Every structure is written in structure tokens, then in C-alpha cells.
């Protein structure tokens, strides 16, 4: 048992040394309780210190260690070797993002999109701290709680062929987070988000492949968030056509 091994085929791209990526095979000890991230750390510490990848918490909270594991976007801290053993495991950077080095992608585009949709709470009315908290009922919390579980791991982007073909698409997580704040009873910035998320590059570019929801490690259901935003926008549009005198 102790000397059993498993093969990892790891995507390598070292921009200063090679113009094309390649795959490098590593034999690592097989442990039932090891995840792919443990195997990568073993490589980094024991076999090849040049291998570069992101990670932090090791417990599915920080969202840093997302990679393609056998072609599927996964948090490598939650992908157990035992689910693949004895077959080799192919580890690649998240799909559709530019690769900076080895397994590290450039997430600038995603961060920019979070800004575009104002993915933060804007209180309806600012009040001084002395006035106390912005109160909310459990029912009001329930309406957006699922979407607030997003950890920005970008697995949903790596699963979305629409994002792969149209990088201008705002994408699953950013729209889910916009929806999270739009549904928050304390928030008052839905109109500021409307231009970005109700645009063609927003919800209407989504063709509802639905794989974003399948790969989400936090059950956020970004595909649901996008379809619900489509219903909201369509309802608003019909109201503006049928009742142009109304506010909305």
C-alpha cells in the first residue's frame, strides 16, 4: 500500500523558456486521503520546485486552487486521488483563461467584470453607525443566500463554452453575484447594475448550457441566477411597453 503510486500529467507553460505548453508526468505516492492539491504540493516540495500553481486554504473556502482535473473544472483541494486511481490524472489550468505560468491563469478579466456589475452592497439609504444595523428578516435573507455562497473560484467560467467563444460575456459568477445584491432587501443599486447585466454581453449571451451550475462547488446555481435575471428583465420590458406611464 505504502509504495503505490499514481501518475499526474501536469500542464507546464514557462513563458520565459518555451513558447508552447507541454505535459510533464510525475509519479507521486498514492494515498487514499490525498487530494490532487496534496499531490501537486508533493511535486513542488519533493520532485520539482519549478511547478507553479495557486492555493491557499485547502478546505474549499478560498477558491484559489481551481484547475481542470481530467478535463473537468474542480477545486483541487476537493478532488480525491481515490476517485481517479489507478488511472493517471491530467491537471491543467482553468479553461478559457490566458495562462501566465504552468497552472496559473490570469484572472484579471473576471475581476474587471465583478467591477462592471457593482458586485457589492450599496445601501438604499446610508445611515450613521449610531443608527444601528441594516435589519433583514430571515425570509429576506433566504431570497439571496444561495447566490452569496460564491467563492469566486471561476470554475463556472471554465465550464462555460459561451465564455470560451465570447470572452466579452460577463459570465456566470459575476451575474450570480449581481443577482445576489439585486435580491438583497438592503441594497438599492439594481438600476446601476442593469446596464451591464441586462445587456447582450450580460444575461442575453447565455444560451443556458447549465454546466456552470453542475461544476459549482458551493451549489450557487449561476445558471438559475441568469435565467431569473432574464425573467426580471423581460417582465420589466413588457411593463415598460404595456404601461409606459408606470415607473417601471
Amino acid at each position, binding site marked *: 500500500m505504502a509504495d503505490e503510486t499514481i501518475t499526474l500529467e501536469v500542464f507546464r507553460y514557462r*513563458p520565459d523558456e518555451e513558447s508552447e505548453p507541454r505535459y510533464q508526468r510525475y509519479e507521486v505516492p498514492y494515498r487514499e486521503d490525498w487530494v490532487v492539491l496534496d499531490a501537486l504540493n508533493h511535486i513542488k516540495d519533493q520532485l520539482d520546485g519549478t511547478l507553479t500553481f495557486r492555493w491557499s486554504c485547502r478546505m474549499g473556502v478560498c477558491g484559489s486552487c481551481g484547475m481542470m482535473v481530467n478535463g473537468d473544472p474542480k477545486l483541487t483541494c476537493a478532488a480525491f486521488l481515490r476517485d481517479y486511481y489507478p488511472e493517471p490524472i491530467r491537471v491543467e489550468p482553468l479553461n478559457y483563461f*490566458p495562462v501566465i505560468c504552468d497552472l496559473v491563469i490570469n484572472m484579471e478579466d473576471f475581476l474587471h467584470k465583478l467591477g462592471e456589475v457593482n458586485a457589492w452592497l450599496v445601501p438604499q439609504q446610508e445611515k450613521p453607525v449610531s443608527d444601528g444595523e441594516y435589519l433583514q428578516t430571515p425570509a429576506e435573507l433566504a431570497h439571496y443566500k444561495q447566490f452569496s455562497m460564491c467563492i469566486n473560484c471561476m470554475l463556472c467560467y471554465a465550464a462555460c463554452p459561451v465564455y470560451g467563444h465570447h470572452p466579452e460575456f460577463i459570465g456566470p459568477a459575476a451575474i450570480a453575484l449581481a443577482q445576489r445584491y439585486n435580491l438583497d432587501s438592503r441594497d438599492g443599486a439594481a438600476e446601476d447594475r442593469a446596464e451591464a447585466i441586462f445587456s447582450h454581453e450580460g444575461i442575453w449571451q447565455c*444560451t*443556458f448550457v447549465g454546466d456552470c451550475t453542475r461544476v459549482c462547488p458551493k451549489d450557487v446555481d449561476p445558471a438559475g441566477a441568469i435565467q431569473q435575471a432574464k*425573467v426580471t428583465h423581460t417582465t420589466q420590458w413588457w411593463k415598460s411597453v404595456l404601461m409606459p406611464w408606470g415607473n417601471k
Partner: protein
Amino acid sequence: MTGETQTVSPKAAGAKQYIRPVPANWWLKRKTYFLFMVRELTCLAVGGYAVLLLVMAGCARDEQAFHAFFQWLESPFSIALHLISLPMVVYHSITWFNLTPKAMVVWRGEERVSPVLIAGSNYVAWLIVSFLIAWFFLGAA
């Protein structure tokens, strides 16, 4: 005064990046992608039925044309077309109804109404409307 954090993007810093092309057969790489493409393809059958209904409506005022249209419907080519189209439309409808809970969210206080109930009520509505249409046309015939 607090210090500002300066971030330099890899692109702006002139770092070389590798952009992986999306292969033309991307939709064969994963079962979910393939089923999505099948669902998209079934739109053709839905569109085909819409055209069929328009043609039928167009012939409605001319008894001879209506008769000729019905004769065409009974032709082997038309029957073969229906044998292909019907399963496609049924697949499209089923996948459509199964996806309705994603878009229709109904809350009962803190509890979300079960997705099964949302999809189920859509199926029931589908059956009732189909029954009424069949009853109307078969009754008229």
C-alpha cells in the same frame, strides 16, 4: 492617510500569456455539452412544426388547398418527417419543462417552493392545453 495598494496586471507588465484555442469539437468533450447541442438542434423540429401550422392556417380558407395539404401529410415522406420530428419536439419540451424551476422561483416565506412542484405544474398545464387542443380539433373533425 492610508497607503494605496498598487497592482500591476500581468498583461500590463508585459508578461507572455498562453491563450488556448477552443477546439471545434468542444461540444463532444463533455456529456452536458453534447446534450445541450442536442437540445439546440431540436429547435429545428419546433420551428418545422411552427411552419407546418402556418401552412395549414394558410390553406384553411381554400378547401382544395386544405385537402391537398392533408393528402401531403399522409405521404410517406411526411410520415417519415414526423417520425423524426416528434421525438425531437418531445425531447425539447421535456428539457424545457425540466428547466423551468431554474427561472421560476416561488417563495413561501423562508421556504422555496420545490422545483419538482414547479416543473410538475408546468407538465400538468401542458397536458391540459394539449388535451383541450386535441378535443377541439378532433371534436370539430
